[in-house]
């Protein structure tokens, strides 16, 4: 357990360094700082929910890795739907709480836009990473429950920071 935890913490430090590189921007615009933990967490959770459902389906033998498989496609569609419906609310919540506490410097529409775009990009990435990791674990005969969830959660955490950074760079 410990060696895996140490490797994962190094991976997370990589995303920390990305955060550190736009620290000035984040300190100037606290709404974006408020978005950081919730974006990381939601991205990781989207991946881990999909991973847990696919792992169970693999164990039950009710899934095939084909683009026509109903379980596979249905769960991927649900993940995209969750991301698209939850992230705009996340953006609005982040702006509202910032305004109430330290005072927001960005317009609410900007924060919602940043969150919604990040969510849409993250949904695609979370689905791709989860399908790939589950497929590789399945092919190698590894128990997807042990391997897939930590790998997917931590990868999606890192992608959460990278995507947020990218979207801020493009939109603001």
């Amino acid at each position, binding site marked *: 357990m410990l060696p895996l935890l140490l490797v994962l913490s190094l991976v997370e430090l990589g995303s920390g360094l990305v955060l550190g590189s736009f620290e000035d921007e984040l300190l100037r615009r606290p709404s974006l700082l408020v978005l950081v933990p919730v974006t990381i967490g939601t991205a990781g959770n989207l991946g881990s929910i999909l991973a847990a459902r696919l792992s169970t389906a693999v164990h039950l033998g009710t899934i095939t890795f084909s683009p026509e498989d109903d379980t596979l496609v249905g769960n991927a569609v649900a993940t995209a739907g969750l991301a698209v419906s939850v992230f705009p609310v996340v953006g609005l*919540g982040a702006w509202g709480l910032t305004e109430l506490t330290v005072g927001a410097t960005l317009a609410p529409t900007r924060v919602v836009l940043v969150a919604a775009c990040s969510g849409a990009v993250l949904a695609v990435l979370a689905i791709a990473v989860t399908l790939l990791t589950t497929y590789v674990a399945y092919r190698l005969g590894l128990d997807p429950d042990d391997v897939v969830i930590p790998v997917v959660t931590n990868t999606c955490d890192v992608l959460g920071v990278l995507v947020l950074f990218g979207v801020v760079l493009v939109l603001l």
Partner: protein
Amino acid sequence: MSIRAVAREAYREALPALGASVVGGLFAGVVLGGMRSELQQVPGLLVLVPALLATRGNVYGSLGARLATGLHQGLLEPSIDLGNERLRGAIAAAITNGLLVSVFAATAAYVLLGLLGQAAASLPTLVAVSLLAGLFSGITLTVAVVSVVFVGFRRGQNPDTLVGPIVTTTGDVFGMAFLLLAARIVLSVGGL
């Protein structure tokens, strides 16, 4: 089942847990947004945030999964008895892992920032903040995970489905709050 039916069921089942973690994540964000002066006084602290939050999830999520498996297999009784060696062992292992990873992450962040030529607080400051935050949140998360899993199991809930949302929600909120508290404590003793 058709794709539509699968997608609808998956969406409905996942939304409550995701919603709970969103609320937790937003409150964690409010704490982070409110600790801008600490972030400026302890350069490198922001770099540690993702690693420390993820460690809480990884370590205490695994504690919850272990307890859930023990309960399912009948190796653990659903009563909080610290005399039980299996329970004590699982808790001790989780807290030890949590503290070791916290110290490791602080040291690695210090080294990486040094290599990149970026500003960082002193090594003892980063390690002390990380260790204190790891200790406070470790105790809180252990209490939360053990009580929710045991109480949930006694009430006939599947502990496996409780662990994820509990750990992500309390881990984010308490992880950030205790990081702020730890930074204030270390800064108030005059830094190291």
